[in-house]
């Protein structure tokens, strides 16, 4: 450690950032049309599109979601709600 | 002059504003301090009328103040860490050209690996450049040293660097009295550049262009001799400063402080810890605590704070240390492959006929906290570590 100062790729993933949230995004899958805009807009890459019974649906990784709310702001059908997270 | 509670950087910025340099130049990006940020704001708010030149690098910032100083202007710049290293070439030139530039170094460690935190490795990288180098313990001392730096620089036509510990002083809040603008003017007077050395487009000449082997050595020797002369000047100037500015007691220097160094603790101390910068505050509390204990009652300890590191106050140091048996040098820098620079300076100053145990402790590199507990352990360990260099983790 004190000699090899090389950091391994992806080691920043060891640092989970979900604890920084004030507001948590909740996705209503009935409203969601699976357009994938939230996944594309997420600055943390914390939203992945998954196959949900043949439908594309977003899945948010709350270990890394910082609660910025961009997904909720951009969702064209307002399927994502930001709710105050109790701490 | 009321006492205020201020961030260290702001205290220095307000002091510089009162000193009224004609040109301020700095590179604004990390590693920089709030000092030049505040100075830029004073200028944009119309509270100051210096020329503020935002440079494209520290090398440029140093070059700009060098040029302005060569044209006779009172100048100021500040930097830190890698910024000072990038300035290094110009830092040498400024001293060689005898320009009374004043700079603040917010002391921080150097890369690699990247560190943003405090130690003295940046300043030590340019300790041989020919600058007057002062180190401050707290905000009050930092503001006083800036006024003194201008006085000394302009009187001797040598550059001066005021070192204050990055974050520990630059980002901390504590009560401080800012030197009054009128008193600063009375103390410093107008800057009087050396006329024979002044660059003026109306009468073009070249400064510091070239010296053949037949002359270079003597020129450097003269620089060395002139730098050493500051040792005789600084105590008197520090006393003048105290007389003029000491209205509130908080701003008065401590007993045992002659501007070059400060001795704190019992005269009969057996072990003395030698430090520079903000570490002195923690060290004073540490020796007080140690001296209250049974070991300290038998063998009391004291603190020697070096305030003027270049020129190095050899005679004052020997006088202050009297008949001590053991000196623990506690320093935030190391000359890699050798020892701590402060320990080397003290060893070279110490006369061979006076027996002394001298132990060198390297602490606080890259911002590692130096606690009172660590310092008390150092006082205890020092007698058993003669002529050894120990890194305290």
């Amino acid at each position: 450690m004190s000699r090899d100062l090389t950091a391994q790729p992806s080691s920043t993933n060891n640092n989970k950032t979900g604890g920084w949230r004030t507001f948590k995004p909740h996705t209503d899958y009935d409203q969601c049309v699976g357009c994938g805009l939230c996944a594309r807009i997420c600055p943390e890459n914390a939203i992945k599109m998954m196959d949900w019974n043949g439908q594309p649906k977003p899945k948010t990784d709350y270990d890394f979601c910082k609660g910025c709310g961009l997904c909720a702001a951009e969702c064209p059908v307002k399927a994502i709600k930001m709710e105050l997270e109790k701490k | 002059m009321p006492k205020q509670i201020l961030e260290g950087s702001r205290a220095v910025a307000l002091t510089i504003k009162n000193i009224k340099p004609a040109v301020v130049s700095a590179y604004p990006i990390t590693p920089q301090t709030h000092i030049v940020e505040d100075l830029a704001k004073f200028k944009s708010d119309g509270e100051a009328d210096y020329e503020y030149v935002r440079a494209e690098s520290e090398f440029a910032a140093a070059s700009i103040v060098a040029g302005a100083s060569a044209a006779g202007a009172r100048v100021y710049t500040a930097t830190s860490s890698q910024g000072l290293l990038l300035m290094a070439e110009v830092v040498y030139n400024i001293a060689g050209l005898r320009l009374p530039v004043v700079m603040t170094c917010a002391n921080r460690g150097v890369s690699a690996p990247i560190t943003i935190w405090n130690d003295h490795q940046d300043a030590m990288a340019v300790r041989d450049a020919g600058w007057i180098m002062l180190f401050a313990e707290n905000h009050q001392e930092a503001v006083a040293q800036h006024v003194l730096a201008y006085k000394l620089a302009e009187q001797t036509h040598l550059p001066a660097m005021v070192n204050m510990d990055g974050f520990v002083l630059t980002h901390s809040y504590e009560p401080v009295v800012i030197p009054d603008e009128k008193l600063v003017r009375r103390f410093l007077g107008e800057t009087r550049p050396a006329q024979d050395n002044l660059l003026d487009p109306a009468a073009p000449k070249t400064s510091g262009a070239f010296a053949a082997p037949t002359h270079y050595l003597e020129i450097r020797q003269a620089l060395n001799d002139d730098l050493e002369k500051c040792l005789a000047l600084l105590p008197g100037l520090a006393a003048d400063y105290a007389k003029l500015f000491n209205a509130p007691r908080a701003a008065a220097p401590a007993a045992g402080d002659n501007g070059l160094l400060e001795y704190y603790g019992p005269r009969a101390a057996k072990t003395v810890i030698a430090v520079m910068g903000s570490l002195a505050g923690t060290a004073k509390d540490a020796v007080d605590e140690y001296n209250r204990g049974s070991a300290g009652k038998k063998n009391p300890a004291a603190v020697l704070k070096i305030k003027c590191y270049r020129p190095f106050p050899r005679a004052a140091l020997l006088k202050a240390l009297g008949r001590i048996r053991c000196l623990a040098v506690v320093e935030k820098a190391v000359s890699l492959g050798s020892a701590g620079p402060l320990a080397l300076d003290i060893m070279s100053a110490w006369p061979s006929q006076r027996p002394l145990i001298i132990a060198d402790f390297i602490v606080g590199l890259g911002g590692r906290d130096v606690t009172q507990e660590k310092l008390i352990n150092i006082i205890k360990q020092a007698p058993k570590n003669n002529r050894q260099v120990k890194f305290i983790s």
Partner: protein
Amino acid sequence: MKQIRLHGRGGQGVVTAAELIAIAAFLDGREAQAFPSFGVERTGAPIEAFARISDTPIRTREHVYQPDVIIVQDATLLDAVDIAHGAHKNTLVIINTAKPPAAIKLPVPEKNIFTVDATKIALEIIGKNLMNTVILGAFAKATGLVSLAALKKAVMEKFSDKGPEITDKNLKAIEQAFKL
């Protein structure tokens, strides 16, 4: 001398909170010191800041290892950082959380734990989760180390360049937290 350690995350105004404590104590006529211990310079990283209040000049620069007061701005740090390290039997802990003291798992007596939902107050009054000033209202109330008047004056001084609207909201939020 009273020693205060503040825990928060980058961007939550931890350092400002420590400075406000020192300014308020100074305005109360006492000696004071505040300084940060920055971690990596980025939003969200755990950060500590320190303040000391004394009746004699403060010389030491070491971090605070035996805090008399611990302020936790973000309750999620309870799982990430050893918040209580160095706490003694009289150390007071003030936490920004919606939970009651009994629900907080910390190795300090329950009677020494004060909880305040500073985030809720900040969202209601300031409109953003800027709860660093709010929690200081609770700090002033729980510890009595700074007066409410001095704390408010400190906020007015420190926030003078932020405009009267933001300053007033912060003052209101501090009063709200002080009442609890």
